[in-house]
Structure formats: structure tokens, C-alpha cells
């Protein structure tokens, strides 16, 4: 029996060729730990190429996760364990590993060809370059083959189940049971029983190998986290966005129409929604981004919940039509799962550089509400809010997410459907004025939703400037100015239906206020927590509502001496805050396609005090 050593948290990165099943291995390890009760945060990191040349650095796919017995807000900065299926995977990920960290190596991925493809001068297993780490060398290919010697399977098929060996090995190492993955295998290969047998065999072989070999003397355990009581599931950001949309459509009593065009990293929302046709969801894969948003406008005109999603380049194409949506004053949600830009940029890497595009990126004065999710599970609540605002305020709404949270996952204390806010569409009931005035408004400047099929409400709308109330085409100068102001006032009035801003973490007043938005939530929270423990007087505000900003934000800002704004862009929210509040906010910017590390934020907090 090996000794079991307790750990508070562990960060592991799985890495291999993009065909090695790394994402699946990572997801399985995540689910098993989540079901065990750990708090978890994950971050997949894969190449843009589906199958870049095998064995090369370009083809390395990675999956990072942190699991802990305490609350976990980020997938971790520095890894404790690296699983490298070949030399290229080692090369790419070694910088993420802490000194004295553990590397689990598949020795079969370190032959002369692999070394050459990874552009190593010498075999890292043979020179002294790994001396600072603890290496566990396993010939995974050979052991997998041995486990399947009687299976009659070919080499290619056998190699495909290597990831199960590694997974079994890690389950033993971290004192986890095989149950969850066994169940998964049985479901996944239900139609191919021979593959069930093979994968189960290899999984168990990995587990037993770890048990019987003398590779390590102790196992590890990470106790279940003390999360708030309740029922949990694991969820990825795009998945949360998709089911948030379904939930909102159900609560609003409106069928969901989702018109979109495939683009990384937003496509998974389409894949998820396409599974839920039994909720009346209609998904439409349009011929291009423009058709996607236009189909949504058509659906919205027809009285349905119209939603589209894309990423930066696609959003740019949709710009004109979004402006039409603003002009028509029809409800719709536009999701932008941001990625590195400009142009095609870094499709599989994360960035927050479309905030200004969302707020300002249309011709003319075309204001619209913009809100952003801060974590994978927060995508649910935030997109639900996006739908609520769109429908109740009769306006297109931007929902921002990014590649980091779209593909990342975490445990989610999912809500009971009854607890979700009601969403009430401003349809017309009962008597209506004659002639009907399609652009008559309520006190929040919201017009009514008059949909085809209703007698007496026949009316025409369009992209040309309209006369107040009647909606007739108007070139009157006074009217145009009035309409521009009305459309602005309408978006401003959304502020009345959103909550006041809270200090999300840290102190309510003090030296430094860190203001963030979007996926930097976890890392800022972790950093601020640490800084407060070290005695720094720091607070953290994380904005979900970016346009309009919460009413009390200005007051909260005044309670601090300094304001810093970390963003994964070249400084966008910081510009808005400086504009709106005349505050000397400083941007902390990282534009590398990868998230901030906790230390980077802590350093920024400390720097902002020292510099004064």
C-alpha cells in the first residue's frame, strides 16, 4: 500500500498531439473530480489546425485544469503536473510547469523522429534539461498494446486508446475511482461493444500499472471542496450560453430562433442548441454571417426570440444589420465569443478586444446594451439577462463571452427553473389606437411588439429614419435629432432594470480599486484575495453591465485612491471609464492570447501603490 498524501489543490496540464484525445482525457478527469466534489476550473488550449502535422509543436493540444478542496477561480497559473504524450507537447508546455513539478512522459513519443519534429537538439530525456523536475517515464504505447494483445485490433485503433491508459494512471495517482469514466465509455461506444471492452481494459491497465509499478511511493488526494450546499453539475461556457438561451425562451414563452454561421470559438453554441429541438428551438446555419443576423431580424419581426452568435470577424460583418436592428427597435441577442484579433487574428486564443466594437461599432448613433459573462457558469445568467433586456426593452443586446470561458468549465450550482426571473414581452393586448402607432413608447421609451398575424396592427418599419410614433419615413431635421436622442434615452433607461454595482471582492474602500469585466473575474478575485491577506487595501469590481454602466459605479470609484483596469486588450474599458467618470484609471494590459496570471494582477496592484 502506498501512502496517501493530502493536497489542497493540484494543477495538471494534459498535452499531446491534437489527435491524441487530449481534450477528452481532460474532460473525463474533470468530470470525475467534479463528481467527487472538488472545485474545478479548466482551460483547453488547442491549435487552430484540426490535425496539424503529427509530432510538431504546431499540433500540440493542451487541457489545463485545477482542482481543489478550496474554492478555485482560475485554471491555475503554474502547473504541478504535466502529462506529455510526445516531445513537442513537452516543449510547448514545460514553461508552465513549476520547478520540482512532475512530468509524466510517454517515452514512445520521444524517438529520434519526435525529437527532430519538436526541434529539440538533443533528446530531453537523455540530456540534463529535466533535472529540475520529477519525471515519470512510461512507454504508454507499448503497455497499451500489451493490454490489447488479444483484442485483434490494429495498431492505429490500439494507439487511439492510449489516452485511457494515462487517465487510469492518473486516477490511481489521485485516488479517484474509475466509475465515471467506465460509465462514459459504455455510453460513448454503445454501438461498438468491442471498443467498450478495449477502452475499459486499457483504463484498468493504466490504473493497475500505477498501483503495481514502483514508479512512485505515495498517492495523492484532494479532498472535496466546501462549496455552498446544493446540487451541482459541471458546465462549459458555450454550453451555459446555449441552455441559458433555451431557459430564457421557455420563461418568456417565445420560441427560440438561432441563426448563425460557424466560427471558432462560437460554434459549440450552435452544436448544443441543435440538440434541443424538442424545446421548439429552430437553428439555422445560414450561408454567411450577414444572412445569420438578418434571419434573426426576420424572426424577431415575426415575434420570436431571435439570437445569433459569432466572434470578432463575424460580428464585423453583422455590423450593418445590427444597426438595422437598433433602428427597427426589435429584440434580439448578439453573442460575441471573442478571440484574438484584428482580422482573423488568433482564432483559438482568447482576448477581450471587441468591447469597443460592441459599444460603438456601428455607423451613425446606434446605441445598444452590452453585457459580459465573467465565468463559464456565469454565461447562463448573463445571457439570460441579455434576453430579458432585449425583450423588455425592445432592443438588440450584445452578450460578450470569450474563448477562455467559452471552452473552460467549472462546477455550477444550477438553478431551479422556478427561480428564474420572469420575462415579459411587450405584445399588444386589447384595444389599440387608430391609426396604430408602431413607435409609440412607454416611460422607458420602449415601443410595443406588433407582430404579423394580428389584425389592425399592419405597419411598415425600416432602416430609413422614421417619424416619431408613426414610423413613417421622415427627413425632417428636428425629428432626426429627436429620434437619435430617444434611441439613446431608451438604452440609458435600461439602467433602471439592472442591479446596483456591488464590490465583488475585497474592501469597499481603500487604496486600489481593480475594475474588470469578462473572463478576468477568477484571476482578479484570486489576486485581490491574496493582496487583502497581505494587508493591501484593495477592492474588486467586476462589471457585468457595460452599457449602460450601473448607476452607482461613479460613487464606488470615488472611495478608492487609485483605479486599475486589467484587460486582455490594449485598453478598452479603461477608456470608457476615463471618459465617463473623469477618473485617472490605469490600464493593465495583456495581449498574448492567454489569460492573466494571478501574480501579474498582484504585481499590478502593488505597482499602482508604489508608483505614487
Amino acid at each position, binding site marked *: 500500500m502506498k501512502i496517501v498524501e493530502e493536497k489542497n489543490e493540484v494543477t495538471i496540464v494534459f498535452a499531446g498531439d491534437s489527435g491524441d484525445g487530449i481534450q477528452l482525457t481532460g474532460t473525463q478527469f474533470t468530470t470525475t473530480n467534479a463528481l467527487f466534489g472538488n472545485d474545478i476550473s479548466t482551460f483547453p488550449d488547442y491549435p487552430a489546425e484540426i490535425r496539424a502535422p503529427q509530432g510538431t509543436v504546431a499540433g500540440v493540444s493542451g487541457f489545463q485544469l485545477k482542482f481543489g478542496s478550496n474554492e478555485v477561480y482560475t485554471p491555475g497559473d503554474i502547473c504541478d503536473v504535466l502529462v506529455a504524450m510526445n516531445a513537442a507537447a513537452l516543449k510547448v508546455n514545460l514553461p508552465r510547469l513549476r520547478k520540482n513539478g512532475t512530468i509524466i512522459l510517454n517515452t514512445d513519443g520521444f524517438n529520434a523522429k519526435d525529437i527532430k519534429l519538436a526541434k529539440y537538439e538533443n533528446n530531453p530525456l537523455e540530456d540534463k534539461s529535466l533535472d529540475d523536475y520529477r519525471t515519470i517515464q512510461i512507454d504508454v504505447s507499448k503497455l497499451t498494446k500489451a493490454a490489447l494483445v488479444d483484442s485483434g485490433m490494429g495498431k492505429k485503433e490500439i494507439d487511439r486508446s492510449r489516452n485511457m491508459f494515462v487517465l487510469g494512471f492518473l486516477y490511481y495517482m489521485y485516488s479517484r475511482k474509475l466509475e465515471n469514466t467506465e460509465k462514459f465509455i459504455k455510453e460513448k461506444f454503445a454501438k461498438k461493444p468491442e471498443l467498450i471492452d478495449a477502452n475499459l481494459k486499457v483504463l484498468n491497465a493504466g490504473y493497475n500499472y500505477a498501483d503495481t509499478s514502483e514508479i512512485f511511493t505515495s498517492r495523492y488526494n484532494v479532498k472535496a471542496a466546501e*462549496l455552498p450546499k446544493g446540487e451541482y453539475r459541471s458546465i462549459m461556457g458555450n454550453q451555459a450560453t446555449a441552455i441559458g438561451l433555451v431557459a430564457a425562451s421557455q420563461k418568456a414563452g417565445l420560441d427560440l430562433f438561432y441563426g448563425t454561421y460557424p466560427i471558432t470559438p462560437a460554434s459549440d453554441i450552435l452544436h448544443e442548441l441543435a440538440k434541443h429541438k*424538442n424545446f421548439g428551438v429552430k437553428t*439555422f446555419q445560414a450561408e454567411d454571417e450577414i*444572412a445569420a443576423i438578418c434571419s434573426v431580424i*426576420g*424572426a424577431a419581426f415575426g415575434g420570436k426570440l431571435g439570437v445569433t452568435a459569432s466572434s470578432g470577424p463575424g460580428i464585423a460583418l453583422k455590423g450593418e444589420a445590427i444597426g438595422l436592428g437598433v433602428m427597427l427597435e426589435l429584440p434580439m441577442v448578439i453573442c460575441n465569443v471573442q478571440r484574438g484579433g484584428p482580422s482573423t487574428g488568433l482564432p483559438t486564443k482568447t482576448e477581450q478586444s471587441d468591447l469597443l466594437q460592441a459599444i460603438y461599432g456601428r455607423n451613425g448613433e446606434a446605441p445598444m446594451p452590452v453585457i459580459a459573462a465573467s465565468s463559464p457558469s456565469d454565461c447562463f445568467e448573463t445571457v439570460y439577462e441579455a434576453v430579458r433586456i432585449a425583450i423588455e426593452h425592445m432592443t438588440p443586446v450584445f452578450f460578450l463571452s470569450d474563448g477562455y470561458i467559452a471552452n473552460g468549465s467549472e462546477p455550477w450550482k444550477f438553478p431551479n*427553473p422556478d427561480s428564474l426571473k420572469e420575462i415579459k414581452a411587450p405584445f399588444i393586448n386589447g384595444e389599440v389606437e387608430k391609426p396604430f402607432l408602431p413607435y409609440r413608447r412607454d416611460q422607458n421609451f420602449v415601443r410595443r411588439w406588433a407582430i404579423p398575424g394580428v389584425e389592425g396592427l399592419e405597419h411598415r418599419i425600416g432602416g430609413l429614419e422614421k417619424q416619431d410614433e408613426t414610423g*413613417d419615413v421622415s427627413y425632417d431635421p428636428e425629428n432626426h435629432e429627436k429620434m437619435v436622442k430617444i434611441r439613446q434615452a431608451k438604452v440609458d433607461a435600461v439602467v433602471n432594470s439592472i442591479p446596483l454595482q456591488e464590490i465583488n471582492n475585497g474592501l469597499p474602500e481603500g487604496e486600489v480599486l481593480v475594475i474588470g469585466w469578462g473572463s478576468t473575474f477568477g484571476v482578479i478575485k484570486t489576486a485581490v484575495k491574496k493582496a487583502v491577506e497581505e494587508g493591501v487595501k484593495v477592492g474588486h469590481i467586476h462589471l457585468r453591465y457595460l452599457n449602460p454602466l450601473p448607476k452607482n459605479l461613479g460613487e464606488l470609484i470615488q472611495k478608492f485612491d487609485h483605479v486599475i483596469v486589467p484587460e486582455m486588450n490594449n485598453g478598452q474599458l479603461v477608456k470608457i471609464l476615463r471618459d465617463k467618470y473623469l477618473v485617472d484609471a490605469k490600464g493593465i494590459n495583456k495581449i498574448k492570447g492567454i489569460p492573466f496570471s494571478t501574480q501579474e494582477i498582484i504585481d499590478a496592484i502593488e505597482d499602482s501603490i508604489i508608483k505614487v
Partner: protein
Amino acid sequence: MSELEVLEQIKLSPKDFATDQDVKWCPGCGDYSILKQVQSIMPELGRKKEDIVFISGIGCSSRFPYYMNTYGMHSIHGRATAIASGLKISRPDLSVWIVTGDGDSLSIGGNHLIHMIRRNFDLNVLLFNNEIYGLTKGQYSPTSKAGKVTKSTPMGSVDHPFNPMALCLGASATFIARTLDRDPKHQREVLLQGSKHVGTSIIEIYQNCNVFNDGAFEVFTDKGSKPIETLMMESGQPLVFGAESEFGIKLDGSTPRVVELSSVSKNELWIHDEKDRFKAQLLTSFFDDPTVEGHLPRPFGVFYQEDRFRYEDAISQQIERAIEIKGKGDLAKLLSGNNVWKVG
């Protein structure tokens, strides 16, 4: 009361479809005639006013919805087709009409047009073709003839023009027809046929822009040249033309030839069959420049129609099927997923 009885009681007239808006096309524009014919066939659709939607893009023709007392949207350039697609998928119950021009649907909106056509939504497209950009004041369009001198092509256009009917058929259209602004009777007939087609009906209407491209189709409308230059197709009838119906079209293998009826009997002529895709392809290629010696006459009427499943129906069926298999969506189950664990 049945739906039909309700409709009979309503008894709509063309006037019910006019709005209070001043019609702002140039005096003499061919659009007036189209507006009149469209309003005149509306009562014959058998639909209530509130179930009809007109959607347009940008261009002179696209002002159309403002003049129709139905639901309407004057959208953005080239996108009426895409907007109508979304509307039709989400509201299959509506009668949807797209009003577009040669610039709107064949240039900036070309992509949406072809994709909408292949999906075969049950809707109607009125393609006003005037072979010019009118609203932007006179640049050549994708249907302008090669060599066309316009403001943007002072030395003549070097663009080869689209053949709209051939393009639409190539995109798997299930109904294509051509008519003329200056032939109200023919126009009305074609509009009615198009409105009855279940699927996407494309109706190309040669429309004279008397300001920027006056007389572009004169050869097809002028009393003197019309009989010899136009071929009025009628289903089940031989293809004949000429003031005295003295000419006909005969297929020589796969080559159409003009023959004189004095020497060839009517029985030997090409009999028009709207269901024949191969022959429709030949007919759409009757697209010769009328100034060229030995050219074929230009066909008008319905080239082709077929019955094919509609995208919106297929989508609705999938939803029904999904409900059949999985049961109606259960939100609580969706939120919890399959792997739940309890804390505390």
C-alpha cells in the same frame, strides 16, 4: 365560421392594400404599374391582410412595402432575402413577399438570393430588373448590357451581365417566370401563378427606368417589335411568336431553331412544358442581344416549376420528430444535465 367564410365576409379590394403614403417614384416609372398589379392580385390570395408581409432591401423598388397596407419591412441593401428566410422559418404561417431589384438581389445580395432559392421557402420574389442603379443615380448594374455607357462607365461597361433566370434555375429554383411592367395583363397572370406556387417563386419583371435607362426593354414592349422579339410561353402550347403567329421554335436535337409556320406544321414545334427542367434550361438561355442577326426571341411567362419540399416545413417536422422521440423539453432536466452531485 370557416376561414373561407371569414375571408368572403372581409372581401378585400385592391384599395384595401393601398397606404396613406405618397408614392414617391419618378413620374413615368415602371414601378407604378407593378404596384398596381400587385395590389390588384392581393384580394385573390385568399389571405387576410394581417397575414401578408412585404420585405424589401434598398433601391427604388424597395420603397414598395411602404405602399402596401400589410405588414412590411424596408430593410438594408441585398438582405431582404435573408430577413425573409428567418421570418419564414419562424413563421411558416405567413404569406411572405420580397421586393427587390437587379442591384439589390443580383449584386450586393447575390449570395443570399441563391441560398434562399435552393432552400425553397414558400415565398414570392418580385425581382424588378431595370438594368441600372436608379436610386444612386445611374451606374450600371449586374444586368446592364456589356458596353453600357453610364456615369460609372463613360467608356462602356466591361462587365458581362447576369442572366437572372438561368442563375435562379442554376440555384435550383422551383418556380421562375418573367414578365413586363408594360404588359399589365401578362404581369397579373404571372403574379397570380407565382402566388399559387408552393415554394420560392421568382418573378423577374422587366421594368423601365425612364430617367436613367429609358427604353432598355423597348424592343420587347414597342408595338412594332414586340410580336417578333417576344416569345409568350404557355403551358402545353407550342412555342410560337410573330404578329400573325407566323414563327415557331423547333428543337433540332438539342438546338432550338426559329422556323416559319408556312413550312413547318405546328405539331412539330416545341411544346412548352413547365415541368421539364432540361428544356427550361434551354429556354433560360434564350438571352441573345436583340440587335444581333439571327437571335432568338426573349421568352416571357413561366419557364419552370416543380414541387419540392420547403425548408421551413422540414425544420418544423424535425421539431415534431424531436418531441416525439425525446418528449417535450423539460427545462429542469436541461439545467441539471446527466451528471449531478450534491454538496451538503
